[in-house]
């Protein structure tokens, strides 16, 4: 009798764990606003989340990349420049970990925007990619209009960056890795200079992929 009770307890405990795991969901970040619509004569209030708008840049292969190129993907975005002497090397040392973990996953990408497009031409980015050891299409280094890049970063990804000839390398920026879901919503910020945060990002990407898959299944 005791044994059966023990087994039932164990089963319940396992079930509870599973339940908790299924429920774990990443928050949706950024600004949001309620939008009230009239549907079938009834007032319905819905929340509209901030999303990353469309953009047009060129990757290290010279291909045009837009929001459409990322359709059906979750992705991580960051901002860097190839001649950066401060935090970029450590960011991309950490990003390499993310790249290696997910490079064969079909619905995941990494995009790194250069904030110094004048120096970082397509050829420079290709050389950087080769030296970093990244191939294929799971990690794009994007180059384009400087103002468009800064607007995207500051207004939409909500990360700070500026040009400052007084600092080594000439640019000030933060080392955020931003996680974006298939609906272009911001789902997480991770300090790309810290190994523990990048490990958390790798875990969160797995969570987000699972979440998206269940949504499709329903």
């Amino acid at each position, binding site marked *: 009798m005791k044994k059966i009770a023990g087994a039932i307890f164990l089963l319940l405990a396992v079930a509870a764990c599973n339940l908790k795991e299924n429920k774990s969901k990443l928050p949706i970040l950024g600004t949001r606003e309620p939008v009230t619509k009239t549907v079938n004569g009834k007032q319905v209030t819905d929340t509209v989340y901030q999303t990353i708008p469309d953009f047009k840049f060129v990757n290290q292969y010279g291909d045009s990349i837009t929001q459409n190129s990322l359709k059906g993907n979750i992705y991580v975005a960051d901002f860097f420049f190839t*001649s950066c*002497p*401060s*935090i970029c*090397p*450590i960011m*991309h*040392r950490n990003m*390499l970990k993310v790249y290696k973990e997910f490079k064969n996953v079909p619905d995941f990408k990494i995009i790194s925007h250069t904030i110094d497009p004048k120096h970082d031409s397509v050829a420079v980015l290709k050389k*950087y990619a*080769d*030296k*970093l*050891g990244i191939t294929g299409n799971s990690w794009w280094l994007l180059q384009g209009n400087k103002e468009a890049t800064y607007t995207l970063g500051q207004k939409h990804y909500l990360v700070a960056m500026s040009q400052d000839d007084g600092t*080594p*390398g000439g640019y000030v920026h933060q080392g955020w890795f931003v996680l974006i879901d298939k609906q272009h919503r911001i789902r997480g910020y991770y300090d790309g*200079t810290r190994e523990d945060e990048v490990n958390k990002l790798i875990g969160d990407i797995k969570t987000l992929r699972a979440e998206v898959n269940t949504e499709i299944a329903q």
Partner: protein
Amino acid sequence: MKFKLIAGILLLVVALITACQNDGELEFKRYYTGGAAIYKQKCQNCHGNNGEGLSSLIPPLTDSVFLKKNRDYLPCLVRNGVKETVLTINSKAYEGSMPPNGDLAPMDIAKVLTFVTNSFGNRQGTITVDVVEKDLAACR
């Protein structure tokens, strides 16, 4: 009597040698720990926690032969950086630039070099401030 004198002299010599050794060890430790802090602040972002570098972009600091062969050049390299130069490290060519560290005093350079050349599998002993100052004066 003679025996006592010889024993006394021997003892003195031994005491002197150990004292000197301890001084040398103490100096090494002072350089090394000071250098570790400077490394963390100035070098680690690019060259890594374990001097591993980054792919083919940034060279590792694990090539003991390179460090030994270019010992005289290391202080200049740290202070002035390198510009669009190809360096062969661990028989792999690294092309690119390293920013200069004009704000580092000769003492700091000596400390950080002592740290690097005695970490990551390297073992070259103390690089003193005197040696660094001499090398810096000869920078091209």
